């Protein structure tokens, strides 16, 4: 078989078979087509463990907690339906709820921007061809690995306690410190500091983003005489906005869910005076200590809606400041 010269335009496309396929060939094609359409039951067999996890450990407990949020449930005796009472009580008659909302918002809104700024700053410093750079990167990432650990929170308690290291440090400069952990005006800031210190995860993501930035743009900018600051604000930051956005969304969600540091640093009390009563800690206390699991479930759903709200706002606001390079046409 020969191809006509005039057919050159479609030369790359596989030509239709000149002769009809035999029955075996047709069967094979049918099966291949069925596979492409995703037919057959056996892929689901392989997915079954995942589905079991999804429905058993996520969907069912979520729906169950939605039901429980409308009940009075003390964990020990059967749940009683009470309608929206948990929700109305929360907003109208629970001062600790508002304390926890206040502490959590303060925690998230202060710690996340600081953490991202620090993460980006360090990522830029670590994005250099230095000798032993791997060691530095590991060293800066380390706090994040340890971050969730109870041990670190315990150390924090000691460092910022009345006779702690931090006050010793202030003492060198002749400043008389106070007990930072157990004063209601400062305790939340020790938690914020702990969160900011764990900037490793967003830092690694920033670092990956920085590696992708096109070098030629910087070279062009250098020729045009752009200084370090100009290059950062006019090139690096705009090109990184998708990554800033990604980190922002995740860190805000993580921030709202913070539990361990508050639990450990305050000895499970959320004190002093509810100043470290982060929302998750209050939720835990209500459910497992005060035996109000129905109320705790309602709290969880409010948290869910608040996080969903923040995330939605982020995505909407993101349209105005996040630049994807495929937008530049």
């Amino acid at each position, binding site marked *: 078989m020969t191809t006509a010269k005039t057919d050159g335009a479609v030369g790359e496309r596989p030509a239709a078979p000149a002769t009809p396929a035999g029955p075996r060939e047709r069967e094979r094609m049918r099966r291949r087509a069925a596979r492409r359409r995703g037919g057959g039951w056996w892929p689901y067999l392989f997915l079954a463990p995942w589905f079991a996890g999804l429905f058993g450990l996520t969907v*069912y407990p979520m729906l*169950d907690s939605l039901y429980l949020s409308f009940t009075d449930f003390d964990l020990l005796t059967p749940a009683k339906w009470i309608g929206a009472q948990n929700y109305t009580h929360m907003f109208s008659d629970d001062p600790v709820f508002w304390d926890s909302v206040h502490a959590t918002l303060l925690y998230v809104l202060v710690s996340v921007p600081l953490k991202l700024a620090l993460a980006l700053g360090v990522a830029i410093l670590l994005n250099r061809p230095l000798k032993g750079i791997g060691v530095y990167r590991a060293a800066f990432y380390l706090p994040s690995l340890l971050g969730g650990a109870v041990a670190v929170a315990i150390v924090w308690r000691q460092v910022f306690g009345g006779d702690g290291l931090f006050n010793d440090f202030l003492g060198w400069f002749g400043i008389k410190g106070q007990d930072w952990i157990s004063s209601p005006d400062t305790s939340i800031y020790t938690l914020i500091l702990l969160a900011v210190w764990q900037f490793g995860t967003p830092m690694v993501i920033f670092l990956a983003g920085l590696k992708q930035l096109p070098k030629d743009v910087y070279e062009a900018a250098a020729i045009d005489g752009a200084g370090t600051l100009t290059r950062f604000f006019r090139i690096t930051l705009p090109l990184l906005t998708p990554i800033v956005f990604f980190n922002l969304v995740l860190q805000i969600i993580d921030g709202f869910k913070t539990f361990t540091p508050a639990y450990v640093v305050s000895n499970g009390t959320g004190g002093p005076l509810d100043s470290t009563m982060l929302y998750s800690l209050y939720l835990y206390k209500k459910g497992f200590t005060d035996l109000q699991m129905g109320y705790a479930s309602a709290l969880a759903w409010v*948290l869910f809606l608040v996080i969903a709200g923040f995330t939605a706002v982020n995505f909407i606001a993101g349209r105005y400041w996040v630049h994807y390079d495929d937008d530049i046409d």
Partner: protein
Amino acid sequence: MQQAARPGEAAPARRASTTHAPVPQRPAGDPSRTLREDPVGHQISRRTLFRTAGGLAAAGALGATLTACAGGTGAGSDSGDLTMTWWGSDERHAAYKKALATFQKNNPKIKIETRYSGYDGYFDKFNTQVAGGSAPDLLQMDTALVAQYARKGILAPLDSYVGKSLDLTGFSKTLLAAGTVDGKLYGVPSGIGVNQLTVNRTGLEKLGLKLPEREWTWNDLKAVATQVHKKSGGKIYGVDDGGGSTLQCFEIFAREKGQPFFSDDGKKLGFSADTLQEWWEFWAGMRRDNASPPPAVTSAAHNDLTKNAVVIGKALFTFDSGVYGAGGSITDAQLDFLPTPQGDWSGAREGNFVNGGVLLSATKASKKAADSVKIMDFFAQDPTAIKDMRLLRGIPPTEKARSLISAGLNETDKLNMAMADYISQRVSKATDALPAPVPPPGGADQIWDLLFQSNLAVAFGKKTIKAQASEFFDQAQSILAG
């Protein structure tokens, strides 16, 4: 609450490989589109990558906040070993284990699995286990919580065993009342609990001060505590802040005025707002005169015995019974003991009372109640168990037990036991005193916590005494109303 955003983290790769057709080829006519090719040959634009990754990670993280908060009730454990739990200090753990080893030798058929921890989180865990159907068969119970669990039907009534496999000879009626709820026995008290003030005697003597008399008043306490601060050159305060201290402190103050902490039906507070204000004013004065430490010290010790003002050397008197007694000593100083002061000393109106230390209770869902009762009986009557436990669960409940251990006691234990004896005698001699407190109603622990927090709010200057007292009554009432 600590679930990681597992589905979200895995999501980007999965999403990318299913939504993009596997055509490793640049779309014609759009040269400016930047495409990234992954090793398998799939294409992902950065926009898609970050949008889907962000969105899915967000969704996964959101889901995790909800799934942690559901549960259901179930039946008790049915097979395997008998499980027993308790909380306490290392000394108490060792003593329990030693005693149980003897029990095992005599009862090789009963297999016991023990789990123990500190008090923190002990009941959180128990609640979860009950809900999940894996509650222990036998547990150490808190006198403050026994009524709550008994009324919810979690604990097994023990009356049918008493006099048969459970020998309670020598237990006084007042003592058994600590484990009795609505007329039924739900826990065997481990010992006499009295509220003593623990004193660092070494520290006091170093400052040239004498131990106050046993029959003393709140004003005497103030006098000696102020002296401590003066003589130590301002380094040490006298007594840790008792303004938010409940059982050991305020309850005694109110009872002496004829006001119990909770009303008999457990539906109201038994004391008046005036009593509470008078109490907080006394402690405000103590802080003003440096007889008590500033609130940061008090606040740091909340739920943390190692930060107690006496343990860290910031005070010489403490109301926290944990510094010595049930948990063993956690300071090196020679300690001594005093009864909680009274307001107006007549002896007839006694605010002090006797309770049951800790208790041993069996769970209702357990199928090993008979074996659990055998262990309770062993701890109540067996000489080796009594000797092993010494004072680690309170002053032993029976005369026989007290005489068994008296020979082997160290100096501090002896002083502790003598003071407990003295207080319980004083309580029984009082003619115009309230009966022993009713078992605390559900929500009691929230109200005690509220008292602590309220005292701190006053001490930190966030609220006036008057405003905080009325807020306390409002919130306590709302907790008791359920």
